[in-house]
């Protein structure tokens, strides 16, 4: 293979990947609207292009397989064959197969694949024998890793010496990263820029804004305030723009859901109308990438546990087809994604029963309806008696909650028995900027995330109860909460200054007060990574640069104090036990 040929092959793989992104969607639409001529034309052209180009660059197997699919699509295009569900299923399998081949070829341009069965299936349909596909698409999509691995191994063992087969088997065991490894290349109007370079740009622009404010105060004295202000406006615009470069639409994360819904509903024999709203809503790229798995999980749950079977729905006086709506919109500095279903809702009393049986809550504990519903976020909680094939794979809603919280977001649930449930994910628009509170403690200026602070109260000496050798506590509206002093952990000097103010932080139903000297102001700050020297210090979320150009630490109060509290409670119980 000469260099040009290798380059061409890689070009093709990238272009094909880009084409494939839209085709799955098209196949799903075809299923709903089997005689849509424009759609069929577009799909046919996709197969046609894929075949022609793959052959031209020397990927014979893709050409072979795609040729079969093209023939079938031509029949559909010429209205000789009607695109039934079964046919669309086979075409979806074809779509999966091509994607698998592209992944494989990207790692090894000489990779060989097993597509015999699929080619036979396609041929059979054309020949008028409606043979059922061997693997149902639903099953295939739930555990694609395993299938890919087995097939790839079995074929390669014919082609490659043993040693290499082992190496390749290892490679095939790392399927997750493939999905994100290569973004489809966009048309000429867009440009791929590394996130690193964007970060450098953001750093420089942040610095520009600071220097501008210095210039503004200097120029103001010489009567050139107007010029300085227009410079300031310009700088702010540039900053907004450079921040926005990290933003991408949530659309691609949503698109995956259509396939999940199709396969899950087929497997469970339920009818689902998936409605996607707000696909253009933008979010930070890093956040968007971590959004896929939680969304898929919630959707599967909604179909499996939420929606009833068609018979049950009719009996309940509902339309046969269930509705799952996924809606994205901005709310302040958050992206909100709401997943609503019109199913049977979450049965709180059943959850309580279950939680008691599992010893998650004591028998004596009374829960409100809402508290009961929120039990589904509890670790190790699966609502179905038998772990279902669809949602119950050991991954519970608690994992969803943890994932979202790690992104600085939160998950809420509302549910009404008989009418459905709504999950609300709130995610920060960007990980790069947070709303912060600039505070003072122990002679040190620090930033804390505003979102962690529930309320701020003025501390009076007599509010706090001190006990020798124990954590001081205070009474906040009839609840006893522990009191910490930020100075002890993050003051630079023991100033002996009074803690005049307490920030109330709440985590997992536990509130605590954190005493500080003063609150300076609230401001948005750009989060920068901690330097290596402070990386392992407890409670450091990152660093930032304040308006005057000085660096400051961002302290993660929840991380710092929930851990501390747990340690102290453990020590206490040990003391008591002894």
């Amino acid at each position: 293979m000469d260099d040009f040929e290798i380059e061409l092959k890689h070009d093709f793989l990238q272009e094909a990947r880009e084409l494939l992104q839209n085709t799955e969607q098209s196949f799903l639409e075809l299923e709903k609207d089997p005689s849509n001529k424009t759609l069929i034309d577009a799909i046919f052209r996709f197969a046609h292009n894929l075949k022609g180009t793959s052959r031209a660059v020397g990927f014979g197997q893709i050409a072979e397989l795609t040729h079969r699919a093209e023939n079938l699509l031509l029949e559909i295009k010429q209205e000789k064959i009607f695109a039934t569900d079964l046919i669309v299923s086979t075409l979806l399998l074809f779509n999966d197969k091509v994607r698998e081949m592209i992944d494989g070829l990207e790692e090894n341009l000489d990779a060989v694949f097993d597509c015999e069965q699929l080619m036979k299936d396609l041929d059979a349909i054309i020949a008028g024998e409606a043979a059922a596909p061997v693997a149902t698409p639903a099953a295939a999509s739930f555990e694609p890793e395993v299938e890919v691995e087995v097939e790839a191994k079995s074929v390669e063992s014919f082609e490659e010496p043993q040693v290499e087969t082992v190496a390749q088997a290892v490679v095939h065991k790392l399927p997750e990263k493939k999905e994100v490894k290569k973004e489809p290349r966009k048309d000429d109007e867009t440009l791929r820029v590394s996130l690193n370079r964007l970060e450098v740009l953001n750093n420089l622009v942040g610095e520009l804004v600071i220097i501008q404010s210095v210039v503004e105060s200097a120029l103001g004295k010489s009567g050139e305030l107007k010029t300085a202000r227009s410079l300031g406006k310009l700088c702010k615009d540039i900053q907004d723009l450079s921040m926005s470069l990290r933003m991408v639409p949530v659309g691609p994360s949503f698109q995956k859901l259509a396939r999940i819904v199709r396969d899950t509903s087929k497997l469970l024999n339920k009818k689902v109308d998936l409605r996607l709203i707000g696909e253009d809503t933008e979010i930070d790229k890093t956040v968007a990438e971590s959004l896929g798995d939680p969304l898929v999980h919630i959707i599967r749950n909604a179909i499996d546990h939420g929606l009833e079977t068609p018979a049950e729905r009719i009996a309940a006086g509902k339309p046969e087809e269930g509705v799952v709506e996924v809606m994205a919109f901005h709310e302040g500095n958050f992206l909100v994604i709401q997943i609503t279903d019109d199913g049977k809702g979450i049965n709180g009393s059943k959850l309580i029963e279950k939680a008691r049986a599992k010893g998650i809550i004591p028998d004596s504990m009374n829960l409100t309806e809402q508290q009961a519903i929120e039990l589904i976020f509890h670790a190790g909680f699966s609502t179905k008696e038998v772990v279902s094939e669809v949602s119950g794979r050991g991954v519970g809603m608690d994992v969803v909650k943890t994932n979202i919280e790690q992104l600085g977001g939160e998950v809420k649930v509302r549910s009404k028995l008989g009418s459905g449930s709504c999950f609300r994910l709130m995610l920060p628009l960007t990980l790069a900027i947070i709303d912060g509170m600039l505070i003072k403690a122990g002679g040190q200026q620090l930033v804390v995330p505003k979102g962690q602070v529930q309320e701020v109260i003025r501390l009076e000496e007599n509010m706090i109860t001190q006990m020798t050798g124990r954590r001081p506590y205070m009474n906040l509206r009839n609840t006893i909460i522990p009191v910490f002093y930020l100075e002890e952990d993050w003051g630079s000097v023991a100033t002996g200054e009074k803690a005049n103010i307490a920030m109330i932080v709440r985590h997992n139903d536990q509130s605590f007060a954190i005493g500080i000297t003063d609150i300076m102001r609230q401001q948005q700050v750009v989060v920068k990574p901690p330097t290596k020297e402070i990386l392992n210090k407890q409670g450091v979320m990152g660093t930032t640069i304040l308006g005057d150009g000085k660096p400051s630490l961002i302290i993660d109060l929840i991380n710092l104090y929930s851990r501390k509290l747990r340690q102290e409670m453990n020590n206490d119980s040990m003391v008591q036990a002894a």
Partner: protein
Amino acid sequence: MDMFNKDKNSSNMETKRFLEFKLGDESYAVGLLKVREVITPPEVTAIPKAQPYVCGLINLRGTVLTVIDLRKKLGIRPGQDASQNAVIIFDLDERLVGVVVDSIQKVLNIDETKIKPVPDSDGQGMAHILGILHHEEKLTMWLDPKSLLDGSAPLKVAA
């Protein structure tokens, strides 16, 4: 960078370039390519409860980095005159670290034959000395900033 390249191409390839500086009364040197820039000591933001040799954080054109007092880390008594103090910004594979030194001496061009290995001693902490530079009848220790700044244990260099 252009200047480096020109020098590299025109001069003898067996010459290495170093930045010589003083810690207390002693001369040390580092490979010039590891040095991003040299700045006058800026105001630092203290890091509470950090190791004593960590001076704090600074903002270098939008990048937050740590400044370290190498003298404290190596147990060297600082010189009397602080007016010549400088901070060397090291570029250590993807991360920047600032180091306070007593003063910057000069750039050294050292023939490779004048770079001697470290005498095999049982003294601890010689790991971050890459060699000894012989020049103008002086001896200068060639430090490896990466092993010095990536390691966390305080080390002793001074004899």
